[in-house]
């Protein structure tokens, strides 16, 4: 049955053709950039969320797709960016933009020793350890409640000083997408550079070998920690923007479930493809919003129930039938057509 499905799903996509990639992406970009002009606030918020998640996911593409390290702990750095920035504004009275930069820097600095300690390990153990680190971070945030607001969250975080001629949600929308595109370009560039090649040489998942790369004179550890820090900076950036956007941050918004969801986005989109991170983020946020807003109206029942099952089912189907992610679908279809 598995094999039949593996044929049927690409065939359906084939029937409704995924052609003209370039035209499609130009149209998508135009629709996206004009969204605040015609969309309502809800839609703008959803797409801002997609941009922020894409930024975190892009970091994981660097770390997993290029460096071959599976992390289930990106929420830690997202949380550091958000909390440090919030603390700097509320307790120290700094302007939000400066505080956000401090948050990002702190996230990057924390990643150096953590990365050095964790990346000595190899293989799937790294995923388990990063997940545990995330739980430790969660407990820390909850317990240092005088600074972080504890389990109920940090509230009344000031907003960025946005220009007066546009709505705040519109401002954040453009800010988030600007940052997402910068991160995307950076990731694409890194993947093709000398650094990307060095990372791939040491990446077991891409057919490389850490030992061989080491023998060839590549300081694998150095590059791996570098990738870890860049991923942390990405996550911290998204977290800081999120904090000043929502004006609230709570421990659960950077907990283990968040980190696992980010990993799911990357896998569903295609681990090695930076564009896949955007696609995966869009799909997962889409599922979340669909099941939160639409499904309870259609079928009733508690919110929060359907999306959990949907994440799981999408992840399993994707890994079984499209192991290289949704983004490999067009290439697969092309290959099938030529074959």
């Amino acid at each position, binding site marked *: 049955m*598995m094999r039949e499905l593996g044929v049927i799903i690409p065939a359906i996509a084939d029937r409704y053709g995924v052609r003209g990639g370039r035209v499609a992406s130009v149209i998508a970009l135009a629709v996206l950039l004009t969204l605040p002009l015609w969309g309502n606030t809800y839609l703008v918020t959803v797409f801002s969320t997609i941009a922020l998640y894409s930024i975190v996911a892009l970091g994981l593409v660097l770390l*997993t797709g290029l460096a071959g390290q*599976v992390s289930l702990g990106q929420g830690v750095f997202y949380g550091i960016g958000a909390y440090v920035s919030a603390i700097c504004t509320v307790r120290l009275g700094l302007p939000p933009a400066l505080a956000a930069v401090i948050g990002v820097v702190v996230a990057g600095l924390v990643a150096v020793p953590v990365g050095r*300690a*964790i990346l*000595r*390990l190899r*293989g*799937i*153990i790294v*995923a*388990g*350890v990063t*997940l*545990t*680190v995330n*739980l*430790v971070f969660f*407990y*820390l945030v*909850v*317990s*240092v*409640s005088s600074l972080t607001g504890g389990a109920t969250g940090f509230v009344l975080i000031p907003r960025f000083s946005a220009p007066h001629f546009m709505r705040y949600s519109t401002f954040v929308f453009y800010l988030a997408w600007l940052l997402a595109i910068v991160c995307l370009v950076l990731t694409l560039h890194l993947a093709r550079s000398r650094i990307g090649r060095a990372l791939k040489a040491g990446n077991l*998942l891409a057919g490389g070998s850490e030992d061989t790369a080491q023998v060839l004179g590549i300081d694998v550890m150095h590059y791996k920690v570098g990738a870890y820090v860049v991923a942390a900076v990405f996550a911290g950036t998204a977290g800081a923007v999120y904090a000043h956007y929502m004006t609230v941050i709570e421990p659960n918004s950077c907990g*283990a*479930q968040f980190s*696992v969801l980010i*990993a*799911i986005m990357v*896998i569903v989109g295609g681990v090695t493809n930076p564009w896949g991170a955007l696609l995966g983020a869009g799909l997962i946020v889409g599922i979340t919003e669909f099941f939160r807003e639409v499904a309870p109206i259609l079928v009733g*029942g*508690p919110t*929060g*129930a*359907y*999306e*959990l*099952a*949907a*994440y*799981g*089912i*999408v*992840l*399993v189907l994707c*890994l*079984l039938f499209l*192991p290289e992610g949704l983004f490999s679908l067009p290439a697969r279809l092309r290959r099938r057509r030529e074959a």
Partner: protein
Amino acid sequence: MDTATVLQSLISGLTLGCIYAALGLGLFVVYGVTRVLNLAQGEFVMLGGMLTVSFVTVGIPLALAIVLAVLMTMLSGLFLYRFIIYPARHASGSTLAFLTVGFAFAIEGITLLVFGWEYRSLTAFLGSSSIHLWGATIFGQAPWVVGMTVLMVVGLFFFFDHTLVGKALRACADEPLGARSVGIDINRMALLAFILASALGAVAGATITPLTMTAYNVGIPLTIKGLLAAFVGGIHRAEGVILGGLLVGFAEALSAGLMPTGYHDAIALGLLLAVFLARPRGLLPAHGVAE
């Protein structure tokens, strides 16, 4: 700081340690035979607890309810292997681990749909009376939890050392190629490992529910504690996992008793992580095998 507090911490440490050891054993069985890090082990525990509670609620006697719950959880373990892991058995370790994550999310979602989000509990197996000992309180269910783990350990050692199937499982774990060449069906052994792990999880779930309560979302935190136990002690040996589980339990309970309130969870987990990072192959590494 009095003897009663220390005694109380030690007692809850032992109880918690047994819970984590049971989780670690499930991870060990699957990892040993198939090299899959099963991030859905906590979901088996959750299912065992939730199903037992719901069977008891509809009036089925406790013993029968547990048996039914264990059997149904074993079915979910069979499903996980046969339809999710088996088709992708040649994929990388991280793909396989993420397949179990997907299964875990699906199970959580379905449980939430069927049973709702409320925390549920069971009455203790022999009434909810507690034992008082030098100022410390032992909940009536705690000895059952300890006994369940001891029984599990003894049973597993007997199974692995003295039965043909157990020896075949161990052969797969030690030397897959050799096992295949003497005619052991590796895929069947892998299926057996998943079913065994789900049964272990379900029994643990039914036993700990009177003590810890259960809900659809207890699985992932339990999995993380089990992972920590397995990593700290060493996932390659049953002894390592048991030692790791007890260490995690005692660290948690002692820091809850001795450390400033609120910080104890972070301190205990942080310390254990530090132990693991200092000894990445576990306190009891595999017997003379180069990794």
